[in-house]
């Protein structure tokens, strides 16, 4: 159900997520404490390659990590296996990727 490739993809994506999560929390605290309005935040993120790369990478890592995690949970609790399990994992990852990237594009384009 979980081979070395999937295991490594999940561990490596977790390692990518550690600094990004800390960065994200720091940004949230900064934005709230500074009392930035939505317009002011968008003013800083729109057109910014840095924020596009930061949150684009975050969404990519989350999609990979969560899809593999959901694969394990669904297999062990609902008994889904084989091709159906593979399809579920890819669909879950794709859904997270599309919705996540849509949000990233909305604030950075």
């Amino acid at each position, binding site marked *: *159900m*979980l*081979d*070395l490739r*999937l*295991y*490594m993809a999940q*561990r490596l994506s977790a390692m990518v997520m550690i600094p990004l999560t800390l960065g994200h929390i720091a940004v949230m605290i900064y934005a709230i404490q500074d009392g930035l309005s939505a317009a002011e935040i968008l003013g800083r993120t729109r057109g910014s390659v840095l924020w596009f790369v930061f949150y684009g990478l975050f969404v990519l890592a989350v999609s990979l990590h969560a899809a593999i995690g959901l694969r*394990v949970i669904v*297999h*062990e*609790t609902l008994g889904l*296996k084989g091709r159906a399990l593979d399809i579920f994992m890819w669909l879950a990852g794709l859904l997270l990727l599309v919705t996540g990237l849509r949000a990233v594009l909305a604030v950075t384009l």
Partner: protein
Amino acid sequence: MTADSNGLHVDVWRGSGTEGSFERFLVPMQESQTILDVVAWIQQYADPTLSYRYACRVGMCGSCAMMVNGVPRWTCRTHIKKVIKDNVLTIAPLRNLPVIKDLAADMDPFFDRWVAAGGVHHPTRDRNDAVEQISPATPERIEADAGIECINCSVCYAACDTVANNVDFLGPAALQRAWTLYLDPKDADPGAILDAVSGRGGCHNCHSQGSCTLHCPNGLNPMKAIAGLKRETVSSFFRGGR
């Protein structure tokens, strides 16, 4: 020996395959009585059709493991005083294995996984060569020495929730066996072992819940062995594998 007039109320699983139910027996209580003594008494004095498995009676052969009050145990070395609750015992065949009849579980899936996990020696020498001298003091040998004390009783396999929920998982005992062979300098193909434990049912499915280590009657640590395999497969992955 002193017999208790009330005796023990023992619920024993009776049936074959997936069909069956518990049957209650009243068994006289004795001094230093083990779970295996209780089962043997039932078979000898109450119902000779009761099926169960045992051999050495001293905790060496790994034949007599059963679920006792829902916990996997070696029955020949488990005193009833240690596990009894309200004078009632529940004895069932090992979890996670098919039932042949009554208390006898089919061990085939357990041993098939030993082979699937690469638990086969790959020789470096043949019978014409001198026996290789192995220092017992190296960290690898000390680590392997702990793992080879496994008596193949399947208690860890029955205790493991990952085995229960993931049909492909090789299980703690088979992976621990693979780990001892991987650490053995006499094994010619450690890469084949890493390949065998890196598949869809391999060591990476372990959640490190630790039931194997908690319940192992010999005090072994299969969870640590699995962690070792994870470490080595990750290291092999970064080196580009085979």
